[in-house]
């Protein structure tokens, strides 16, 4: 009995993992190109969640429409933050860009609180479910997973087949080398930052398709931590690695939740949230050389 429950939850975990993966790809991209860790990562996911919520409740538009909308809004935000703040900090010590992205995140939280209030909100798409032998899966989750796979594939082709994609890859590999080859590095920085943010905001939509409740201005923090752990698991500069690591993380998370729920006297949900940290700690113990100072 436990095993069917576990297996069922693992499937859900895999699906969620896809979403986590897409969410983290933005983080890895930004880091790979401009060498900045977006500490406000989770807050951009929150933006995507609110975009979905607003479009659904106020405009009656399905979250599927919210996906491209969020991407565009995200990219716009990305360009905005890049040209107002980030580009001045490219040459600055790591500390300053760290604090800047942190402050951006806080700003987003507060603006969201201003507009939407601090309450927890949700929506109900009501699409129905698919029934498998071991579990039932809401259709929205399936769509979310499909959305993640499509995004990942799209990125894969973009990076390997298009000129622009290859330009971005060249900057990740060797900035000066790319510059010398005629790549407009400054523009690539801006574009990559914008795409990274765009992906992150978009993943917020996918996330709500998975978890359509609990949307509030402060929901982002936990996701930053998860994204970070996934990025570390999957290779800090590799967007593909991030995707697969996301899948693994989703599996671990849901598996753990199932097991925790069986232990009496604990609250499984918060315990699972703390899991991200324990994984990180374990990683640091076991793989010390891989992470030292970038």
């Amino acid at each position, binding site marked *: 009995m436990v095993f069917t429950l576990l297996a069922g939850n693992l499937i859900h975990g895999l699906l969620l993992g896809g979403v986590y993966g897409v969410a983290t790809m933005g983080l890895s991209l930004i880091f790979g190109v401009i060498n*900045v*860790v977006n*500490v406000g990562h989770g807050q951009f996911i929150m933006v995507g969640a609110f975009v979905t919520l607003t479009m659904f409740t106020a405009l009656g538009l399905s979250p599927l429409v919210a996906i491209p909308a969020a991407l565009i809004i995200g990219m716009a935000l990305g360009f905005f933050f890049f040209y107002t*703040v980030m580009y*001045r*900090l490219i040459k*600055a010590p*790591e*500390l*300053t860009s*760290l*604090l*800047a992205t*942190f*402050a*951006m995140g*806080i*700003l987003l*939280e*507060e*603006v969201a*609180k*201003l507009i939407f209030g601090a309450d927890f909100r949700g929506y109900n798409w009501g699409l129905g479910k698919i029934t498998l032998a071991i579990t039932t899966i809401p259709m929205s989750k399936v769509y979310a997973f499909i959305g993640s796979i499509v995004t990942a594939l799209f990125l894969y082709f973009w990076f390997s087949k298009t000129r622009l994609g290859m330009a971005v890859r060249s900057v990740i590999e060797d900035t000066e080398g790319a510059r010398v080859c005629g790549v407009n590095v400054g523009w690539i920085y801006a574009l990559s930052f914008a795409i990274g943010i765009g992906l992150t905001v978009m993943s917020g939509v996918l996330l709500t398709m998975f978890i359509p409740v609990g949307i509030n201005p402060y929901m982002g*923090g*936990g996701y*930053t*931590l998860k994204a*970070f*752990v996934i990025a*570390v698991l999957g290779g800090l500069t590799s967007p593909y690695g991030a995707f697969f690591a996301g899948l693994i993380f989703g599996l671990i998370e849901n598996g753990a939740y199932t097991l*925790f729920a069986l232990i009496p*006297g*604990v*609250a*499984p*949900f*918060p*315990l*699972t*949230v*703390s899991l*991200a*940290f*324990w994984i*990180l*700690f374990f990683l*640091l113990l076991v793989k*010390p050389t891989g*992470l*030292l*100072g*970038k």
Partner: protein
Amino acid sequence: MNNTISKYYPLIPVLGAYLIMFLIGFIMPGMWQMVALLAFYCALGQSWNIFMGMTGYVDFGYVTFIALGTYGMSLGISYFSQYEWLGVGIIAIGFIFALFLASLSALLEAFIALRLRGAYFAIACIGINEGLRYFIEGAKIWGGSEGIIFFGALTQALGRDTVNQLTSFWADFSVFIIAALAAFLNMYYMRSKIGYALTAVREDEDAAKVMGINTNKYKTIAFLTSGWLGAGVGAMAWGLKLGYVYPGDVFVIHYTVECIVVVLLGGAGTLLGPVVGGLIYGLSKYWLAVIMPGFQLLIFAPIIIIIIVAAPEGVVGLMKRRLKGTKLEMFIE
């Protein structure tokens, strides 16, 4: 002889400021609460400064120390209030617990610092904060998500009058003491081998090692010191004063943001900086809380960005530059 004393001149404006603040609060009616709030921010700013200003490592989860301090005090008082013969000693016990818990976190961070730097370290520290908070809630230890309410136990052990005095005066007064202690330690470190070692660590950790500096030892010293001070503030200003603690109330990232604002505004790595920053921020917050409650972070988040971009050295940093070569220079650090 003369040289040794003049080295400590920069402490004068700092301690002077604290003294003036204390006197204003003590003498003028109704000012104590505000002054206590200012002292709170100054103390936190100085403690955080020892961490970030000196080592260059940013701990986004710094609030963990404050939270652990609060828990330490709560646990100490809850468990030991039954021993009436201890009297006020239970507060000392609570304080020791606070320091102990903070040490664990500081050592954990020192361990993490072995493996991670820069942004990764910063985020990992958020991880400690979130991890600890949700672990407490999840594993239902220390009262789980409901936390610990020990006000009753405290009153029973010490009597209403003593408790009143404690919460309305002594708790805040001890924050002043901690602030002064933080200033002193800050100065002492800056002037000693520790300060030089940390400067080297901050600027170029690998070169520092080749120069013979045991980088881990010095980072650990800084983390422990900063952690203890933060925990002390938490134990007194939150624990003792309020009489309760629960995870959702204390493991809150935005206090770290406040520390960052205070130190950035004033000038990171300087002695006077956190005091100036604490005063500016504390007063602004107080004032804003009256006019536009709930908007503080909305206003300060972009301010952080502006400071980072336009004036990264903060007020005191700018002052130092202006005053270079003048007599006042030796008082400003």
